[in-house]
């Protein structure tokens, strides 16, 4: 009995290790690459044991890239800031618009309600490139091309449907009786919404915000077409490392590591919050 227990534990550990290696290997490799020079990256066979160098990070943070062909300006930190600005503002705007809308769709039946909700969802169906061409022409006409506001607006195509549909489900799951009880106690409609409905849907709102933040952060094609260098996020900015004198693998790897960090930190923080919210979920009597 005890022996077979030990065998099981070993086998399970082995299986878990295999799965982790399988999924995390690319990230591990990128992390390794970010501490190597371009020559080391391109060495064949690849070396697992290297003399780590911080030059990639120094180049990114200082904005100066020394290559064989001479010094090159890179705007990575600017791109990182653009990513933060665009993602945070887009998610914030989506929350302001999407949460009340989700509440309305969940609680009230009104003419055309389902159609409107479905139309909003359908934003996610269309291939982005299909809308981009006409959009960029319009944006040039009305002066929104290459502006943060224009980009944040377009990012609503990514964030708003996601937040709307996830949060709507959470509002629908919560019993309206709890809000009714609060109204009967003498509180206004607005207070019932902010003090009861939103806290009860809190975990859902957090999950939706996190997901849409990740989608916004990872977006590439909208910013590629609609913004020029000084407004572009990291996803587009990484293209700058493909230079005339070759592809700067080391810097690309370091840039990836740096651009993963904010989302990773946010995910870890929100995860704690999500679990807390779920254990609160004993809504039923």
């Amino acid at each position, binding site marked *: 009995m005890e022996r077979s227990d030990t065998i099981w534990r070993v086998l399970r550990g082995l299986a878990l290790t295999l799965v982790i290696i399988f999924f995390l290997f690319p990230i591990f490799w990128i992390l390794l690459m970010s501490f190597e020079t371009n020559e080391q990256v391109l060495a064949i066979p690849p070396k697992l044991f290297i003399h780590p160098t911080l030059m990639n990070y120094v180049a990114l943070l200082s904005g100066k890239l020394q290559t064989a062909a001479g010094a090159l300006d890179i705007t990575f930190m600017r791109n990182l800031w653009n990513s933060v600005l665009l993602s945070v503002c887009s998610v914030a705007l989506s929350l302001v618009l999407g949460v009340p809308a989700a509440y309305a769709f969940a609680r009230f039946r009104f003419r055309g309600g389902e159609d409107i909700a479905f139309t909003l969802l359908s934003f996610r169906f269309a291939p982005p490139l299909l809308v981009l061409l006409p959009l960029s022409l319009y944006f040039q006409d009305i002066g929104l091309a290459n502006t943060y506001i224009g980009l944040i607006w377009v990012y609503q195509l990514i964030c708003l449907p996601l937040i709307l549909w996830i949060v709507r489900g959470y509002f629908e799951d919560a019993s309206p009786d709890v809000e009714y009880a609060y*109204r*009967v106690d003498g509180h206004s409609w607005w207070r019932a919404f902010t003090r009861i409905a939103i806290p009860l849907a809190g975990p859902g709102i957090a999950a939706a915000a996190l997901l849409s933040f990740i989608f916004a952060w990872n977006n590439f094609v909208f910013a590629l077409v609609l913004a020029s260098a000084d407004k572009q996020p990291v996803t587009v900015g990484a293209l700058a490392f493909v230079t005339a004198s070759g592809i700067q693998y080391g810097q690309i790897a370091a840039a990836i590591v740096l651009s993963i960090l904010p989302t990773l930190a946010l995910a870890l923080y929100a995860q704690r919050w999500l679990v807390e919210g779920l254990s609160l979920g004993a809504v039923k009597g």
Partner: protein
Amino acid sequence: MSLTIRNLHVAFRRNLVLDDVSLDVAPGETLVLFGPSGVGKTVLLRAIAGVEPAARGQVLIDGRDVSALGPDRRDLGMAFQNFALYPHLAARENIASPLRARGVASAEIEARVGRVAELLRISHVLDHPPRALSNGQKQRTALARALVGQPRVLLLDDPLRNVDAKLRYEMRLELPRLLRAAEAATIYVTQDYREAMALGDRIAVLHRAAIAQCDIPEAVYDAPVSVNVARLFGDPPLNLLPCRPVAEAGGLRVEAAGLRLLLPAAREAAGRDCLLGLRPETITVSRAAGGGAGTVRPAGAGGAGVPVEIVAATPLHERMVLLLRAAGGVELLASVLGEPPQGVPVVLQADEQRALLFDAESGARIPHVARTLEVVA
């Protein structure tokens, strides 16, 4: 401090839930709203509270029409069937909610919450979140929240449904005292007829989208307006036997299941298809005496006993419920005190004065003719 409902009408799409319902509840009075599940009792309460968008009609509190006001401006307390406590707030804040809405000072909130919690014996759990409370404590917290603001109208939606039997009995004894102290016009919803009889100053029976009868508990039980109302009250349910009464001197002669009863009922029913309603506790079962014929009839019992067979017997509280089978296979339920005679032939007798007669077609009860009138006639 009274509540008046006029011509309340609720329909969901084509499904009519409440049709032209009118009610009056006096201050300090407890009106029990009774009916089978799904009949619209909760919908009626919601309409009064103002949280039922489909409601049409008038709700007056103290003579003031509040129909157009939101639930927050009607000044009422409501206890929901599923408690509807705020899961993210401690019991104390749950109870304090109506006072917070009115901007009562913190010190006074503390004092009033403490007082109502003591009354309901939940002082020791005030700092717990709802999920840490037992069902009984949740129910008391919900009740405390409804009572704490001393509202003019109290709406209690089956508050004892989700609590265990022991607590249900305790609360059934305590609630009348609490409600009297609250001095509010109270509507209490239940589908337990014992609870209705125990708590109601009056009972309104909701049936098929309308109030079928609204009267004191004894009247609803002893003189139900229709066979449907009669069927809702009583455990075990009343026996219904098809019959065709014949007019006779002194009343109506009814024969069913071998019984020959002379009912003091109106004679217009003679010759019509009727239903004889016998409450199980108005049936007596006794040992068959001698030859059967010529035995002494107990006062008020109709006719000689009908020989029956006891098919099954089961105890219910202090009484025994018997399933009887008479000649022709007619089965009847009787509820008797003490052990039924065993191993000997038995007969059943029914109380003529308490027998009910209903029109088979309309279901309406055929009223008794007052004795005095009969003497004059």
